[in-house]
């Protein structure tokens, strides 16, 4: 990038301040003005950076979808590693929002590569977490685990808050459970639960307890699985997490069946069947087949 004009720098600082105070429309207007200023100065690299800055706000406003072709163009032409990283990272975000996890993951992988060349440590931390999340959604558990481990290493207290770190830890724990390291995964998920309980953010606990229920089942501890599962189910209902509720009912039914408690398994299966009224044979199916190895609880 060539030297930025004073006006560009001032507008960008004001935009960043507005953004950090949650004044998103104001931030958008200021980033747009900064981008215009960079274009006026004839500085392509700078206007590309300004455009990517604007995308940060567009993402928050849920208006990023129209920007994807320009983001890809920026990614192809830009030389500055941080701008290229932003372009790849936000392209991944657009595809993720569209539900195209496969393509989102491809751009997240590119962002991770670019982050290594960035002088900005936050780029690597953010990339690792996003890359891990997308790999997890796409059932690449080993790859996701590597990224979450990296994200945890980089997630210093100034970059990621206690809840964010706990969520990364929980995701890493689940990846370990899915790759044959259930005991280690349980330890991480227990740590994550303890951290979230300390902060008191109970809305995040349902998913962690669900993962602990799954991990306990993998370890063959059916009583512990039921304890975690019951807690997960209660919170899933309280905080309206229907996917967690359905997954947990399936896991609880598993735990009850594996423990030989037919009455409890009937109760959980009946509750699960009420979520899927079109599938009348579900109960007998789940009685016959343990499907937890083919289900991705995070998908």
């Amino acid at each position, binding site marked *: 990038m060539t030297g930025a004009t004073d006006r560009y720098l001032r507008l960008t600082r004001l935009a960043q301040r507005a953004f950090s105070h949650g004044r998103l429309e104001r931030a958008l207007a200021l980033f747009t003005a900064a981008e215009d200023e960079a274009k006026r100065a004839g500085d392509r690299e700078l206007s590309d950076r300004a455009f990517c800055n604007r995308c940060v706000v567009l993402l928050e406003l849920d208006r990023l979808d129209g920007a994807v072709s320009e983001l890809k163009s920026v990614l192809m032409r830009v030389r500055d590693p941080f701008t290229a990283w932003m372009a790849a990272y936000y392209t991944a975000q657009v595809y993720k929002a569209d539900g*195209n*996890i*496969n393509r989102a993951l491809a751009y997240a992988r590119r962002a991770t590569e670019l982050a290594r060349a960035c002088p900005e440590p936050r780029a690597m931390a953010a990339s690792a977490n996003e890359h891990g999340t997308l790999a997890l959604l*796409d*059932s690449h558990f080993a790859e996701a685990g590597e990224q979450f481990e990296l994200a945890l290493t980089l997630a210093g207290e100034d970059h990621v808050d206690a809840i964010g770190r706990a969520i990364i830890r929980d995701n890493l724990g689940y990846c370990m459970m*899915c790759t044959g390291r259930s005991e280690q995964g349980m330890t991480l998920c227990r740590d994550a639960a303890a951290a979230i309980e300390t902060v008191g953010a109970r809305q995040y606990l349902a998913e962690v307890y669900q993962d602990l229920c799954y991990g306990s089942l993998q370890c063959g501890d059916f009583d512990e699985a039921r304890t975690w599962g019951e807690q997960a189910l209660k919170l899933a209902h309280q905080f309206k997490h229907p*996917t967690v509720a*359905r*997954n947990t009912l*399936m896991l609880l039914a598993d735990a009850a*069946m*594996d*423990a*030989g408690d*037919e009455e409890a*398994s009937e109760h959980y299966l009946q509750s699960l069947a009420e979520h*899927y009224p*079109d*599938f*009348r*044979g*579900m109960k*007998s*199916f*789940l*009685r*016959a*087949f*343990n*499907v937890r*190895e*083919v*289900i*991705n609880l995070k*998908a």
Partner: protein
Amino acid sequence: MKGLNRSLPPTASVGQRVRQYRQERNLTQTELARQIGIQQSDLSRMEKGEYRVSLDVLFRLLQAFEMSLGQFFGDLVQQGLTLQESNLLESFRILPRAEQDEVVEFVEFKRNRQRERGQ
């Protein structure tokens, strides 16, 4: 009784079933993926046993095949066994030979008593 002796199908065998049923219905991966709301590449990975689905997608898949859930893993149905019979057979097969003989004797005893009552 400890445990209900359920089958634990490996991801790979689920994928093989999906491919088999899709091909029997002359559906392409793209068509089936669209029906169940996932990417074709994900369905391809699922058929290879590399991709785990959500519970919702698993049930949508069964709906797309218009199969009862029990039919999905159709070996039991093909063999003409009920689930209970299949579980019993599975348990029987893992017993030592001497204990299998005891089970056979017990079943014969029960059959004889039933015959006697019938006379």
